């Protein structure tokens, strides 16, 4: 099998020990999967690791005297599946097919063994790791396991080492859909050990304190026949068909038909009802090879790497040691954004947070919001009553800025107008200490301009959060022209303690996410202004696989905010950013969203909004809408890179993945623009070299 030379497999070894089972049950050979690193580098399976496991199992199963074989993992990790880097390095379809077949050949030994085989799932188990366990005759799981998943469809694959066949045959189609479609497409949701046991993935569950000892004792009972494994037979009737239909609805709602993997997985689940396991496995290998050689999966691996690695080590962030301690925070403003920030800061940093506003009524309203949110957290048991009390006491309000005198960080969240923000910072500078970091949560204005009139412009930085602040994982950290490293380091440190992914952006209008979304929305609005119905526009763009169309997004962001950003960008780049008449009318009409609930819980365009569309003509086709929008994105990304807004197109993709929820199968957006030829057509070049987020050219 040929793989890219740059790929070096961290080989997972299969180490064995003979274990004397209690009760005279005989010898159990315990196989431990271990890659020689601690839990921070979880165990994965690549070609060499699979080959070693296969050889080990051959040797073990050739021993006539043994009574059982069990597989377990190093502390905290059972096995988290195929080595993605290795899979992404596969260069042709024969290699991809061979990789699929190798997994089946190795895991099949556990399935075909003449002695009982067990998986003792002691820790994280995902993808191929779970499939390995599923090939064993029975399974135990630790109640301490925090991550059980078949995430393949999230990444652009199917569980093709047995999962797409064994899971439905073992648990029925309904549970297979939950595990293989629903959970992965729900932001890659993981199950706990207890949930996995309840679902039927394991036959016994034990506490972590003596999980392995109890699993061995349980296996002894199975070998001796004193313990029987009871599994209900799944319903292979109409429930099967309806489960698959439900899975298709889930995939449509999440991916709008744009990503092949969930649909291919559903075909396998559907067919598993009437197939032998071997027929199922053979079909899995075909599908796996197809998908592995598809650009959607390659983009998925690229996106996964950005989110898992690049997001944790922000490129361009200064030395963390430069960060100043933050023991008290001020927030100027007590509106909705300020309240969300206050709650998040208090909850994650556990330091006093002071909100200020013009009068007592506004301040009390802000505090009231925080208290109400704390009460919700408490009601959902997300914070203990003691912590709730602590959070309530941490967040206080004032009506003048004097309360900020000893703050280490002050964030302004006032009205989006440069003059107001300049005034706020000027006032603050008279009160706060010389090293207090002044941050702005502006979504579009210039950080440099805001700092220009200050005595210490070097302490001003942008901290751009996304609404809803508690949910969206991205923070754009904006370096103004004069921002110094300690200020920037403090901003990154705060972002990290808030458990956000931070990217460094230069001070350019609307930074990254809002600039691209606004350009995108601008094209959508232009289509509407040309007479294209709003539904047609949203549908055309959602069909890329986006979580929502631009007009649906407008309801979430708020038309007024969107208009403000559009106007700012129009001033900066008048030839590319227009202020759409329909958007202006929407704001003037006081509309908060575009869609309303129609009959049968269908979301339909608000008739009053539809009436604001006054354009003559039939508008554009869906194809035209999509083509113009993606061309605009390609153009804008190239300009942002040329301007140096971010260091690398990867940061744009990361920002769109985390800040806009754009899907893995698009790789954010640049891999999609490359693979459709849009980037070359519009800008003359690809954004990423072939093979980075696509199938390498051979």
């Amino acid at each position, binding site marked *: 099998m040929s793989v890219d030379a740059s790929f070096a497999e961290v080989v997972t070894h299969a180490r064995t*020990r003979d274990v004397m089972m209690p009760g005279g049950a005989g010898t159990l050979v315990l196989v431990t999967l271990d890659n020689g690193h601690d839990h921070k580098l979880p165990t994965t399976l690549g070609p060499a690791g699979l080959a070693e496991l296969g050889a080990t199992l051959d040797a073990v199963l050739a021993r006539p005297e043994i009574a059982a074989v069990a597989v377990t993992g190093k502390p905290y990790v059972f096995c988290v599946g195929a080595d993605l880097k290795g899979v992404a390095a596969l260069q042709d379809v024969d290699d991809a097919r061979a990789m699929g077949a190798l997994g089946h050949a190795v895991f099949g030994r556990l399935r075909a063994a003449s002695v009982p085989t067990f998986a003792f799932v002691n820790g994280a188990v995902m993808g191929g790791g779970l499939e390995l366990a599923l090939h064993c005759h029975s399974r135990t799981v630790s109640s301490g396991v925090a991550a059980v998943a078949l995430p393949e469809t999230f990444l652009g694959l199917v569980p093709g080492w047995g999962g797409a066949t064994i899971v439905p045959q073992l648990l029925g189609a309904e549970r297979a859909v939950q595990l293989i479609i629903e959970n992965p497409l729900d932001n890659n949701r993981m199950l706990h050990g207890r949930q996995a046991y309840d679902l039927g993935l394991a036959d016994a569950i034990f*506490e972590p304190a003596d999980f392995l000892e109890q699993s061995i004792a349980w296996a002894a009972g199975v070998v001796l026949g004193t313990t029987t494994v009871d599994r209900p037979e799944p319903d292979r009737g109409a429930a099967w068909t309806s489960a698959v239909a439900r899975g298709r609805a889930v995939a449509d709602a999440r991916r709008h038909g744009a990503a092949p993997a969930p649909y291919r997985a559903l075909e396998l689940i559907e067919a598993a009802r009437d197939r032998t396991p071997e027929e199922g496995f053979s079909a899995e290998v075909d599908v796996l090879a197809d998908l592995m050689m598809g650009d959607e999966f390659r983009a998925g691996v690229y996106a996964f790497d950005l989110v898992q690695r690049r997001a944790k080590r922000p490129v361009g962030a200064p030395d963390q040691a430069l960060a100043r301690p933050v023991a008290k925070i001020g927030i100027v403003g007590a509106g909705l954004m300020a309240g969300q920030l206050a709650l998040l800061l208090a909850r994650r940093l556990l330091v006093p947070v002071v909100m200020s506003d013009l009068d007592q009524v506004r301040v009390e309203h802000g505090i009231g919001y925080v208290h109400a949110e704390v009460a919700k957290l408490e009601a959902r048991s997300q914070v203990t009553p003691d912590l709730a009390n602590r959070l309530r006491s941490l967040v206080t309000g004032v009506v003048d800025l004097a309360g900020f005198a000893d703050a280490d960080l002050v964030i302004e969240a006032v009205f989006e107008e440069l003059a107001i923000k300049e005034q706020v910072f000027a006032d603050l500078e008279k009160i706060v200490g010389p090293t207090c970091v002044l941050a702005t949560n502006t979504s579009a204005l210039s950080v440099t301009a805001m700092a220009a009139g200050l005595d210490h412009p070097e302490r001003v930085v942008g901290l751009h959060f996304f609404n809803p602040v508690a949910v969206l994982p991205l923070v754009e950290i904006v370096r103004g022209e004069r921002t110094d490293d300690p200020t920037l380091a403090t901003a990154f440190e705060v972002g990290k303690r808030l458990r956000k992914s931070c990217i460094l952006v230069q001070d350019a209008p609307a930074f990254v996410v809002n600039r691209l979304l606004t350009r995108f929305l601008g094209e959508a609005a232009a289509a509407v202004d040309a007479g294209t119905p709003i539904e047609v526009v949203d549908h055309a763009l959602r069909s890329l696989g986006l979580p929502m169309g631009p007009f649906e997004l407008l309801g979430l962001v708020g038309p007024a905010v969107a208009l403000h950003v559009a106007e700012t960008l129009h001033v900066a780049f008048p030839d590319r950013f227009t202020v759409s008449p329909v958007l202006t009318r929407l704001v003037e009409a006081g509309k908060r969203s575009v869609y309303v609930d129609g009959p049968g819980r269908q979301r339909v365009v608000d008739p009053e909004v539809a009436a604001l569309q006054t354009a003559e003509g039939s508008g554009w086709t869906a194809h035209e809408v999509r083509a113009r929008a993606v061309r605009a994105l390609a153009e804008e990304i190239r300009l942002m890179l040329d301007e140096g807004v971010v260091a690398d197109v990867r940061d744009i993709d990361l920002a769109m993945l985390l800040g806009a929820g754009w899907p893995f199968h698009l790789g954010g957006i640049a891999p999609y623009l490359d693979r459709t030829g849009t980037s070359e057509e519009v800008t003359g070049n690809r954004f990423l070299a072939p093979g980075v987020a696509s199938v390498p050219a051979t």
Partner: protein
Amino acid sequence: MITALPTGRRPVFVDGVRTPFGKAGPAGVYADVRADDLVVKAVRELLRRNPSLPPERIDDVAIAATTQIGDQGLTIGRTVGLLAGLPRSVPGYAIDRMCAGAMTAVTTACGGIALGAYDVVVAGGVEHMGRHPMGEGVDPNPRILAERLVDPSALVMGQTAENLHDRFPHLGKDRADAYAVASQAKFAAAYARNDIQPDLVPVAVRGSDGAWGLSSVDEPPRPGTSTADLAALETPFRPDGKVTAGNSAGLTDGASACLVAAEETARALGLPVRMRLVSYAYVGVEPEVMGVGPIPATEKALGKAGLTIDDIGLIEINEAFAVQVLAFLEHFGLADDDPRVNPFGGAIAVGHPLAASGIRLMNQLSRQFEARPDVRYGMTTMCIGIGMGTTVIWENPTAAGDDAA
């Protein structure tokens, strides 16, 4: 004949378990296992074996360790309770009396039971002598030497054993080696009869190659040891000495735990009553010959119980050193190979993880009681570093003609 206790509440030994013992050191089976985890496994097995005991009925958790540092520190009785999954309402504490740690955990708990302060207590002990070598972190007061409070040899257990040979010159190396060979043989025979294994808690262990295995049998025993084998061993504590690795207990890792309860509580909860506490005593002796400790301790405990050595049908004595057992036997006029003494073998074979050993003695005595209804009284006894000894006298509930059952 039983001494009347103030409240009339008789403390009983309900059940006891221990981990298999391992050789201390980097090659030992527990080299990479934490000490607190060893006790946790024992405590959990104890509760699994006694499902009729509601965990919230446990009044305290007393865990002994000699070197209360690192994974043997942090008020180990409390942390073990939390790690074992006991309700948070169950308290715990740490105990240290060197080699008699577990023994002291049991007698202290029994004292509280007799007083009426406790109904049920988990008592246990652990010593990971690989992770915590004897003497780790000690800081003896300089007055000890300056004022000659004790002989310098008193802090090195092997030297105290050599001192004992000096005091009893007729207890020669030949007799010590012969005793040691017999201990190995008795222990091997007990294993062959499956007398030991029922009270062992298997422990998952991870090798240096990452492979998980299972420790389910004791590692230290050397079955088949002969006197010729022992004659060849070095005498590390003195040139031309008599104490060797073969006629003393090796450095060992292990943990033990047991349930003690008021007899009435045990009966009400449907728990077994495997031994009844009759009396116990601790005494101090000259630190440089700490091995004689069991002699005065036994005299004292017998006196409190109103018994004589002739009433004692089974004796579990900890074999820190063969010479120390021989001195005890000679004092009470017992033969070196008296069948009442350590019928399952002793620490010379299985090892002596200091603060864990006391409960091993109790486990073995209680198993012997089960098989010997003809024996009414037995005792567990041990010598203790820095010059002490202890003896606990137990009554066999299965004894024929037992009017208290």
